[in-house]
């Protein structure tokens, strides 16, 4: 009987422990208001917010938390930003950075922001952050942060603005550029960096190598043909659509503020035709060859399209590769690149908001951004900054923006990230269709199908306009 009593007490103790833990969780969770889905973002701000953390005892130092999904940023924070921040804020004991790969990070965002169980600072790329900004999960910038933002390029102010207010500050902007292997160019008798996409293709053909079975052993141009859908779509956007003068979306003329697909036209056709021709007519790459920065660093491709910070991987993995960078070449209609940024946001339910803002102000300051450019090969967001200062000399050409360059940013639309995911998921199957070679009707049909998906997403999010 005594034994039974002890066992029963143990079970009860476990049960109490469970109940206690679950209660604790409930207090931090944010109840979902039973409203229609079209509730304006401001409404969310009225929801009950977790009580502010009690002031720490004098001996107890604060720990600030930051979540991100870029490993090179973690190194920069740890080496440059955090030591200076701790010096300036003696009441902060440490800044914890939680790095997560992109897949985990997007999942975490979707779970923790609605639940209110958030870190003090979040580092998120423009397009992923938009649905959360419009849903009211981040604080708008304070005048101090807005003052910093106002000194940066107008593109950043545009893509961080919602309902006339700014959310977040760019901490690591990046643009798209081309990397060329100089030894391979020399070997192929190419003497100048190509300036147009047609020249790029001609040079890529010369630099592509195959074995006796026709298998590509060295691609002339490394094409993004799959993997993470939003990345696949982003590359199609900057290599295919923008140089052909079209974008993923177009603002409705009838109803401003609403959108529809922008590439169900000649530009979209030319973009997909470019991919199909590169794969099956010019054969500068295929699905099986090694891809991206790893291929460039191992000299398995002659030309790669990426952001400047990938030069760090090239240097680390292929220190003997003789390379140079250049701005995006001119396409059939225009020369274009994108300017995207990782931004720092203060979550609405954050515990140490003032300190978080101080951290953001420091990380995005001119001094820290200069270090960021130097250490990460990043893009300096300040209007008056010398964009090439501190850069590896091989990167300098790609930061000297030609006067005819059109710079595109990610729009503030709830649909945009979903569109990227859906399009990026379908593109690899389309690229794999060899039968699209010299098949204008087939290409037009594929573009039309993609356009329908884009418009459906806009309709679902109530952002569609004819």
């Amino acid at each position, binding site marked *: 009987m005594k034994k039974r009593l002890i066992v029963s007490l143990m079970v009860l103790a476990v049960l109490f422990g469970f109940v206690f833990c679950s209660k604790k969780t409930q207090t931090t969770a944010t109840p979902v208001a039973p409203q*229609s*889905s079209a509730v304006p973002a401001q409404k969310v701000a009225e929801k009950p917010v977790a009580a502010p953390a009690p002031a720490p005892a004098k001996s107890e130092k604060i720990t600030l938390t930051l979540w991100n999904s870029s490993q090179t940023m973690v190194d920069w924070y740890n080496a440059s930003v955090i030591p200076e921040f701790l010096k300036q804020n003696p009441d902060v004991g440490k800044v914890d950075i939680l790095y997560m790969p992109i897949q985990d990070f997007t999942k975490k965002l979707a779970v923790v922001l609605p639940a209110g169980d958030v870190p003090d600072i979040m580092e998120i790329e423009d397009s992923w952050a938009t649905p*959360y900004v419009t849903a009211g999960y981040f604080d708008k910038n304070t005048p101090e942060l807005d003052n910093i933002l106002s000194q940066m390029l107008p593109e950043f102010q545009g893509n961080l603005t919602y309902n006339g207010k700014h959310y977040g500050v760019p901490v690591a902007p990046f643009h798209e550029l081309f990397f060329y292997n100089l030894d391979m160019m020399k070997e192929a008798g190419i003497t100048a960096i190509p300036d147009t996409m047609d020249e790029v293709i001609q040079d890529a053909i010369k630099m592509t190598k195959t074995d006796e079975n026709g298998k590509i052993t060295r691609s002339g141009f490394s094409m993004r043909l*799959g*993997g993470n859908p939003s990345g696949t779509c982003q590359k199609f956007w900057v290599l295919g659509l923008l140089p052909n003068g079209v974008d993923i979306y177009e603002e409705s003329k009838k109803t401003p503020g609403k959108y529809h697909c922008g590439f169900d036209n000649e530009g979209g056709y030319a973009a997909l035709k470019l991919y199909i021709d590169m794969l099956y007519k010019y054969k500068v790459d295929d*699905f099986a060859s*090694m891809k991206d920065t790893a291929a460039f660093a191992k000299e398995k491709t002659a030309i790669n399209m990426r952001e400047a910070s990938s030069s760090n991987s090239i240097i680390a993995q292929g220190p003997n590769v003789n390379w140079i960078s250049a701005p995006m070449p001119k396409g059939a209609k225009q020369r274009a690149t994108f300017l995207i940024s990782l931004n720092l946001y203060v979550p609405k339910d954050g515990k140490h908001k003032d300190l978080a803002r101080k951290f953001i102000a420091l990380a995005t300051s001119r001094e820290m951004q200069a270090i960021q450019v130097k250490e990460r090969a990043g893009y300096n967001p300040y209007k008056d900054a010398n964009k090439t200062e501190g850069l590896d000399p091989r990167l300098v050409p790609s930061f000297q923006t030609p006067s005819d360059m059109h710079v595109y940013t990610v729009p503030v639309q709830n649909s945009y990230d979903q569109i990227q995911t859906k399009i990026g998921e379908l593109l690899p199957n389309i690229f794999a269709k060899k039968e699209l070679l010299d098949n204008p009707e087939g290409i037009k049909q594929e573009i039309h199908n993609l356009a329908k998906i884009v418009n459906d997403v806009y309709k679902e999010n109530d952002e569609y306009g004819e």
Partner: protein
Amino acid sequence: MNRLGSKRNRQDTIFCLSIVIPIMVMFAVIRFIPILQTFGISFMKKSMIKPGQKFIWLDNYKYVLTDTEFYRSLSNTFFIALFSVTFSVLLGLFLASVVNNANIVGMSFCQTLLFLPVIVSMVPSTLMWKLLFDYNYGFINQVIELLGGKGVDWINNESIVRWPIVIVGVWKEMGYNMMIFYVGLKAIPRDMYESANLDGANKGQKMLYITLPLLRPITLFVCVMSLIKFIKVFTQAIVMTSGSQSSGNIFKTLVYYIYQQGFQLHSMGRSSAASMVLLIIIFLLTWLQMKVQKKD
């Protein structure tokens, strides 16, 4: 004596209930309530990140059941489940028989080696297999080419990448199945085999008429558990086919479809509807499997 006995029985019952009820309550909170909530959400238009929800009857189910991507995921999942369960169960049984019958030094070490993949995390082990299957530098293609064959693009073609995913799953699962079968084999009385020996039964007959029938409950357990695991295949498919180094599509499975609807496209309603479809599929397959094996 009877009164004493019934008092004792009552005490036992109360004791058992006091142990079981709290556990059942916890189980209900952790398992059943979320399933019921998912069922409820599957009839709602509900965003993952925006407040508010709207009752939309069966629209989410209609969307899911008419979505070509859902059927692509379903077909991929069935393929993986079918071959992974078959191979992992057969190999598990084979290895368990070998381990059970072999009387050689170092067998327990071999057992440990065979069980090792079970405790290794799925992400690093899939990455290791991804390297082995690499088209240009992978060990497997190098062996194929050494034998005079042509290297295969294992990863970037959806109809081919299924096999590496099956192999990773079988490699990870067979050690666990082997252990379960091994325990089952140990429980079979030795005198049954001795009697069979006296009757002149050969190895095959002993396997067919003694081992397999007596292992039936274990086999049912292993099949059901493996099936449930493989129907939920996710990590190995994602790790094997995502990333900028990959070409072609991410190998979409049902769980990936659910994840994508909920966390990437933010539609909790559709994600919940797909989850309920998955639940029904698992339930039906398990029921069918139990029915067939009981009938046998």
